[in-house]
């Protein structure tokens, strides 16, 4: 009798775990589906067969150029940035035990924007031209990227430094992030206010919009490597994150070095955010909303939440980018605005439907 109950419990457990793995598989298939749509969507209306042929280097040169030099890098940047930002948000929210934690709320995005402002306006390193389409183009993006990365890392160092030296609680880390964010936002405003040339201000605002087409293959490779290493690190720590969810004392009693795990996770998450924002500009909302939507679908168990959030981030970002490029084609909308337009109603719908996180 008892043995039958044992067997039944194990079966139920395996079934529940299987359901969550099925969710991850479905999200993976959805991400691949959207990736395929992304590759086929664009101003030059190519058929699916032409896109597939161009992908393998066959067909007209123009088609190969469009697919391999424009759409494919954009798709890869979207996959890396979407998964990365969602992972960063997921880990920040868990480690700080606050659903509002994200690269934006911790000041990393504003710090990167400040760096871009300094490069473009103060050092005149990002000179501006008006292209034939009337768009503002930054023709020296490397220095802008390096400056954005430097200031994003300064923000990360400030937050982590304060956490270590002053032994900040998770709540204090969030507040410190808000303060650092305000500080860099104020710095950005002052720089823009005193800018001599209005086109420089236009350029820097254009930079902050966020654009998946901005990154080179080299930058995409760096971004992908950072995201892949971080993902592996987070997966290794997934049991620790579950234990931390139960409180500091409980986690320690289960053998978790809570400070070390928190700081390691925050560093990796902040690095993803810094690299992504620096290479692509500010893409808000993904880090905040992707883990929250995923929690409402499969619960808070980090064994499943971490990979599922990453896939959800890729889905939201690729879907937003595809919409941004096609809705008023050939004009391209800022992808950050579209992520909010898509993500916010979906998030509100899930909030109303489920009434809270699963479990």
């Amino acid at each position, binding site marked *: 009798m008892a043995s039958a109950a044992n067997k039944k419990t194990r079966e*139920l457990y395996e079934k529940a775990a299987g359901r969550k793995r099925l969710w991850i598989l479905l999200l993976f298939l959805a991400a691949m589906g959207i990736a395929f749509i992304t590759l086929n969507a664009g101003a030059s209306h190519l058929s699916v067969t032409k896109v597939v042929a161009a992908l393998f280097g066959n067909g007209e040169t123009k088609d190969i150029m469009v697919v391999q030099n424009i759409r494919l890098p954009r798709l890869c940047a979207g996959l890396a940035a979407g998964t990365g930002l969602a992972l960063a948000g997921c880990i920040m929210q868990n480690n700080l035990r606050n659903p509002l934690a994200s690269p934006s709320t911790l000041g990393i995005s504003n710090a990167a924007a400040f760096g871009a402002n300094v490069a473009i306006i103060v050092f005149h390193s990002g000179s501006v031209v008006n292209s034939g389409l009337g768009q503002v183009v930054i023709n020296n993006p490397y220095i802008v990227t390096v400056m954005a990365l430097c200031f994003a890392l300064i923000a990360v160092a400030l937050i982590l430094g304060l956490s270590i030296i002053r032994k900040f609680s998770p709540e204090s880390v969030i507040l410190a992030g808000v303060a650092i964010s305000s500080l860099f936002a104020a710095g950005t405003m002052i720089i823009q206010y005193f800018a001599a040339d209005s086109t420089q201000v236009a350029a820097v605002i254009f930079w902050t919009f966020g654009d998946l087409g901005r990154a080179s293959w080299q930058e995409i490779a760096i971004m992908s490597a950072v995201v892949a290493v971080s993902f592996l690190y987070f997966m290794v720590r997934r049991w620790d994150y*579950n234990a931390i*969810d139960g409180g500091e004392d409980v986690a320690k*009693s289960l*053998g978790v070095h809570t400070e070390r795990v928190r700081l390691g996770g925050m560093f990796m998450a902040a690095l993803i955010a810094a690299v992504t924002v620096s290479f692509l500009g500010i893409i808000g909302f993904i880090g905040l909303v992707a883990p929250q939507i995923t929690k409402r679908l499969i*619960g*808070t168990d980090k064994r499943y939440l971490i990979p599922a959030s990453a896939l959800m981030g890729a889905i939201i970002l690729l879907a937003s980018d595809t919409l941004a490029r096609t809705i008023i084609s050939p004009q391209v909308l800022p992808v950050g605005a579209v992520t909010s337009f898509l993500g916010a109603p979906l998030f509100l719908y899930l909030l109303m439907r489920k009434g809270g996180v699963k479990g």
Partner: protein
Amino acid sequence: MILSVDGLSFSYPSHPVLHDVSFTIGQSDCIAVLGTNGTGKSTLLKCINRILKPKAGAVLIDGKSCDALSRLDIAKNIGYVSQYQSLPKITVFDSVLLGRKPYIKWDAGEKDLTIVNNALKELELLDYAMRYTDELSGGELQKVVIARAIAQEPKLFLLDEPTSSLDIKNQLDTISVIKTVARKRGIAVIVTMHDINLALRFANRFILMKNGRIFGVGGKEIITAKSIEEIYGVKATVYEIDGSMIMIPKNHEAEFSARKEV
């Protein structure tokens, strides 16, 4: 001897809490730590478990110094149940599986799942296994955290006021479950409590604490009217009825003498 605590002291930045605390505990011992609020009972458990780092003194688990053990090794030896429960919002099965965290390298294996199943069975939680923790009552939650501690396969349980938020039935059930599990598995127990009568039912040894120091260590004989007044500042009488001891505070004793069976 499972645990030896020698000259343990601890201070928070604002004030000292523990002063030169020393005692030992053998296998299958059940020790109740009694004392007023703020006297350092919970801090003592946290120092033994290295959740807090003591300022001075030594803690030996099974003859090995805690300083020489990794956090994972300590977790394999000591199961801790904190005073305040905030379980992650996962299923009961997964919550208990967290107790296997010190042993799990990458993912839970067959042995881990069997141990969790057995712990759930022992605490009669099999029917609740797939429920989420926020769907449980206080008594059920308490059972889940005890099951998680069992899954750690420890030599020592540290239980910080495990019955403080429970009704009388759940208090007795919880105490009975802990006692049965500890006896069956040969696990020593240190439990902090406020209810002296419950402690008298449960423990075979007692540590009385006052102002962060040990006031007395021993068997039931140290629970006397005098020691209760010294520690709590309350006059009381300790009766022995049918071999069991019971403590009644003096102001209630008047009502007790004019008692009427209902």
